[in-house]
């Protein structure tokens, strides 16, 4: 044990040296605070972090992150980053909205950007990144309605907050649009646009909940389920994997889960991609060449900020007619002919 202790001291001395060196280099540093769920959630936090990694590769910047383990960590985490020398602090998630605003007002010289929150009035040192997710979710709803054998779709969310329910709104409206066009009667369980009530796990980290909620929806007849709850959806994917994709298919969110969840990739019909990596990268670029200012950056179908992922292995299962209809609707949404929200 003595040996371990003395060698630890030697390493401590080494580390001091190392620290000194890294500070001397002082590259442009981006620091990210994740929401609960972890940086490796295959979904929400991971996609936003990918933006920093991409910037690392393209611009040679430094990137650091701090995981929030509970909501109580937000302020503390921001605090420990303000201590360090971050040129830009990116917070990931609607729930960090208040903490980010407070930190930004207390530290007017520090630049912040937040995913999923827009401030009104604008805070001069925060750039909010928001997404017209309902545009891509509308396409997913139309697709799912066209693919369902049971004519029943399922959806559930993490927490009843706007960045989550916007997926559910778009999905339900897409299915409704399908019914309208085809005179069909596909129903969506788990979310009511009118009452703003539905199925919510009330967390973004329990895979068990993801499984249980998907099971409930499946028991009620749904054969395609959209979990909007970050890593919680991985639990739903595990259920689909066991049941087989003839009985249950999953639609991923945030990232293209076919790529980020390779073990269960065969269960994903498609994913509603919210390209946080693209907007984070864009924000970092703006901060680097000093075009950064407070306000809002909107990701939509038109600028590639949101999109529907490829069908990959299910390419052959989706009828050609449905594909061309989707392409038509996609163009319609971009041109403004089709309204995804009233």
């Amino acid at each position, binding site marked *: *044990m003595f040996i*371990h*202790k003395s*060698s*630890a001291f030697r*390493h*401590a001395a*080494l*580390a*001091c040296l*190392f*620290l000194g060196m890294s500070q001397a280099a002082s590259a442009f540093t981006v*620091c990210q605070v994740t929401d*609960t769920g972890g940086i490796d959630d295959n979904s929400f936090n991971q996609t936003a972090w990918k933006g920093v990694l991409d910037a690392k590769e393209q611009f040679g910047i430094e990137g*650091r*992150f*701090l*995981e929030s*383990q*509970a*909501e*109580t*960590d937000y*302020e*503390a*985490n921001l*605090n*420990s*980053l*303000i*201590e*360090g020398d971050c040129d830009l602090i990116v917070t990931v998630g609607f*729930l960090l909205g208040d903490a980010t605003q407070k*930190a930004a007002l*207390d*530290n007017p010289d520090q630049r912040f950007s937040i995913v999923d929150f827009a401030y009104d009035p604008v805070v001069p040192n925060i750039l909010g990144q928001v997404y017209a997710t309902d545009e891509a979710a509308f396409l997913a709803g139309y697709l799912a309605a066209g693919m369902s054998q049971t004519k029943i779709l399922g959806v559930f969310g993490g*927490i*009843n*907050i*706007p960045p989550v*329910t916007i997926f559910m709104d778009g999905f339900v409206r897409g299915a409704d649009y399908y019914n309208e066009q085809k005179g069909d009667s596909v129903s969506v369980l788990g979310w009511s646009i009118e009452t*703003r009530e539905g199925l919510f796990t*009330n*967390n973004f980290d329990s895979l068990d909940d993801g499984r249980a909620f998907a099971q409930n929806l499946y028991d009620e007849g749904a054969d395609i389920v959209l979990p909007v709850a970050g890593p919680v959806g991985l639990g739903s994917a595990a259920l689909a994997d066991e049941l087989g994709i003839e009985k249950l298919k999953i639609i991923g969110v945030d990232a293209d889960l076919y790529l980020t969840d390779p073990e269960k990739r065969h269960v994903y019909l498609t994913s509603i991609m919210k390209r946080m990596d693209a907007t984070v990268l864009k924000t970092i670029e703006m901060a680097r060449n000093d075009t950064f200012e407070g306000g809002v950056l909107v990701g939509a179908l038109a600028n590639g900020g949101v999109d529907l992922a490829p069908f990959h292995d299910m390419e052959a299962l989706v009828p050609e007619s449905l594909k061309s209809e989707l392409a038509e609707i996609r163009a319609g949404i971009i041109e403004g002919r089709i309204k995804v929200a009233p």
Partner: protein
Amino acid sequence: MNETQQTMSLNHLLKAQRGGRSRFEDLVVVPIFAVIVALILGALIMLATNVEPARIAQSYVALLEGSVGSLNAVSETLTAAAPLVLAGLGLALGFRAGLFNIGAEGQILMGGMAAVVVGFSFSSLSPMALLPLSLLAGALAGALYASIAGALRAATGAHEVITTIMLNLISYRLLDYMLRLPSVQKEGRADPISKSVPEAAELPRLLSAIDPNLRVHAGVFLVLLAVVVVYWILFRSKIGFEFRASGENAEAARFAGIRSGIVIVAAMATAGALAGLAGANQVLGVLGRATPGFSAGIGFDAIAVALLGRSHPVGVLLAGLLFGALEAGGRQMQVDAGVSIDLIGIIQALIIVFIAAPLLVRAIFPWGFRKTTGREG
């Protein structure tokens, strides 16, 4: 009664004399070694997960820096320690009375919720009235919630471990429900989140004049006061003696004329009041509102704090500071060295394992202890 008390304390003194160094070893030496072993094992775990030795050292330097290395670090350590000590004191008091209360988490939630509701409901009151009122509401709600388990134990013999765990589960859903009541929920939000606490009900931040990022707040005085009060209750008051007597031997205490039912309910209520204060401390000092997960596992960490502190108020204070330091330093560790903050959870757990197994620590560090182990029971 007074006579018994004197005899008891005399016995205690004799025992302490006899136990001498061994008692000191159990209370002080074992915890220190437990922390050291846990840190070394933590380093080995990092090594096993392919973290280079230089980065391991860097992470421990960051752990130190992030916990005591700057004013902000100390402020964060105190902020994290405050609720752990408060809840830990309550649990320690319960342990002394022979009650293994797992329900601090639920009591924190109920206490914090009550403090928030009182805070925004009477926002017109002056800070001099509103802050104490909110704190009192927190303590009362915690005490009442814990008393349920106490009463069940006293009246039916239902074990408090089971009932408090169940009450935790109930409290989560109860909180979800309450946070969505129109009178509680923040305007314009669909997710469960309470209205904000007005400034008059907030525990004032102590150093915000120096730097607005310093979060340490007046709750630290509450903590110190609680340590003194719990010490007095346990070792200087009649009810405290009854707590301890029941804890040592419930049967004997009953034959000595101590009414066990009242003792159980009183001990649970006091523990709940302290946990409720911990919750109030969080919402009034740190968060400014209630959200579903605002207890953040403090109630469970506090069990570890109470155990590490050997159920002694001063021990709990020190253990709480250590856990607060680990939490604050752990964040710095992740920022500076990129080592996951989950490692801190592992180190905390390892500390508890070694505390719970003093013989193991003695076996690892034979030179740290006296050869003849005259341990007391």
